[in-house]
């Protein structure tokens, strides 16, 4: 067996755990220096994890969203920045896998992702628009076989490290703001002029600097479907589920630390229940809520995947939005409770119970496509959407 087939013979979870071991070793340094988690990404490449979603026919492993979510959670428990990088890469891969199978350029690109373990970045956020995914100011210019694009991309995670960036824009110079396309640009086809430095409260290692993005490439690199469909059918669900899986991972590790703290206290004073135990029970119930929420979303997505109409329905969009809102809010309550349990040892850096990084990383969840924006979008749909009151439906 060669090395790659040996690696592929191991379970995805095993491979993810080996990456997590590397990620957790460097997590505090990545956070303190606000540097890219290079060791973890190298480990993901060594474990061939960047290509797992690509169909087997193109050299990947046809991994399901559920399998990818489990990996996001495993990595999230070790280093949130590395986990978020992995999840964002997989979200971009899902757009190519779901909407590029019929285009020969995108088929070749999928083969390259798997073979060369290419890291995919994303530029949807734009100056003057913010997180309104379904709106662009910039427009792609198609000139014969060539396309050109210039975008004031205010946030591109690991923009400098990515091997390709998928960029949204209006479909042409006269297109309406919501008439968008997404284009794959390969490293070498674009220049990045840094406009904003990512010096943030948390998620410091995603290195999500802002750039003036300028690119020129063959026009066949534009994904052959309107971005509206890509957003509704693959990106919405993948983003909210995989982000939530990372966030669950952060919270799960915080609960682990709090539980270790309470156990330690219980051992020191046999026969008594430590004061933090009650809060731990509370937190355990909240963590279960987040976990069930993500699991239910995965089931819903899997059931809808075969049915384009279901994927584009309001019921599905409302459900996915709700998953994001609930998990992004609840993890903050959970980690805050864990901090109360661990006390000053949780507040301090460098103890086995430190929770500062978890809490700061978790704060990004509500802003990563602003919850207010998502609630606004859901509230609009609720004007016509009728809720399904069944328990199992």
């Amino acid at each position, binding site marked *: 067996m060669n090395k790659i087939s040996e690696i592929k013979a191991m379970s995805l979870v095993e491979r993810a755990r080996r990456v997590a071991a590397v990620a957790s070793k460097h997590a505090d340094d990545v956070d303190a220096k606000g540097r890219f988690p290079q060791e973890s990404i190298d480990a993901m490449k060594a474990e061939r994890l960047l290509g797992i979603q690509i169909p087997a026919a193109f050299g990947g492993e046809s991994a399901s969203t559920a399998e990818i979510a489990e990996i996001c959670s495993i990595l999230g428990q070790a280093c949130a920045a590395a986990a978020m990088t992995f999840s964002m890469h997989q979200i971009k891969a899902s757009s190519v896998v779901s909407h590029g199978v019929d285009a020969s350029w995108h088929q070749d690109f999928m083969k390259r992702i798997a073979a060369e373990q290419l890291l995919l970045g994303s530029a949807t956020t734009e100056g003057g628009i913010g997180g309104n995914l379904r709106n662009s100011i910039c427009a792609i210019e198609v000139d014969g076989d060539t396309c050109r694009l210039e975008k004031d991309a205010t946030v591109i995670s690991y923009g400098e490290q990515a091997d390709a960036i998928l960029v949204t824009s209006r479909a042409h110079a006269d297109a*309406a*703001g*919501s008439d968008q396309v997404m284009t794959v640009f390969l490293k070498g086809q674009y220049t990045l002029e840094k406009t904003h430095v990512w010096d943030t409260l948390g998620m410091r290692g995603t290195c999500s600097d802002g750039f003036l993005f300028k690119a020129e490439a063959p026009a066949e690199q534009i994904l052959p479907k309107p971005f509206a*469909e890509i957003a509704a059918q693959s990106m919405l669900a993948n983003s909210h589920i995989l982000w939530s899986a990372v966030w669950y991972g952060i919270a799960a590790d915080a609960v682990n630390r709090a539980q270790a703290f309470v156990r330690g206290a219980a051992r020191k004073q046999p026969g008594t229940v430590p004061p933090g135990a009650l809060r731990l029970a509370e937190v355990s119930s909240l963590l279960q809520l987040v976990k069930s929420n993500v699991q239910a979303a995965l089931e819903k997505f899997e059931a809808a995947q075969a049915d384009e109409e279901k994927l584009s*329905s309001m019921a599905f969009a409302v459900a996915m939005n709700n998953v994001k809102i609930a998990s992004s809010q609840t993890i903050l309550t959970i980690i805050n409770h864990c901090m109360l349990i661990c006390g000053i040892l949780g507040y301090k850096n460098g103890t086995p119970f430190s929770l500062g990084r978890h809490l700061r990383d978790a704060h990004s969840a509500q802003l990563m496509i602003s919850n207010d924006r998502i609630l606004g979008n859901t509230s609009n*749909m609720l004007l016509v959407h009728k809720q399904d009151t069944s328990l199992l439906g």
Partner: protein
Amino acid sequence: MNSTIRELLSKHGGLPVSVETLADDADLYEAGLSSFASVQLMLALEDEFDVEFPENLLNRKSFQSIAAITAAISSIAPDSQVA
């Protein structure tokens, strides 16, 4: 029904182009119909035709064109005049 739909579309669709320039089968999303405006349009249609869109019609396809909207309304309000 067609002229009523066109009227409501022009009032609630928030389109950057005039509705008169759009053929019945023109793609409304390409013409700039946003998800916010499409909900406003659905509400106006429900009010005007005294119908409620069932869940299976609340998707992009049902509102993709004037023809699709006509078909959607006809399917739930068979009595309303298709003219």
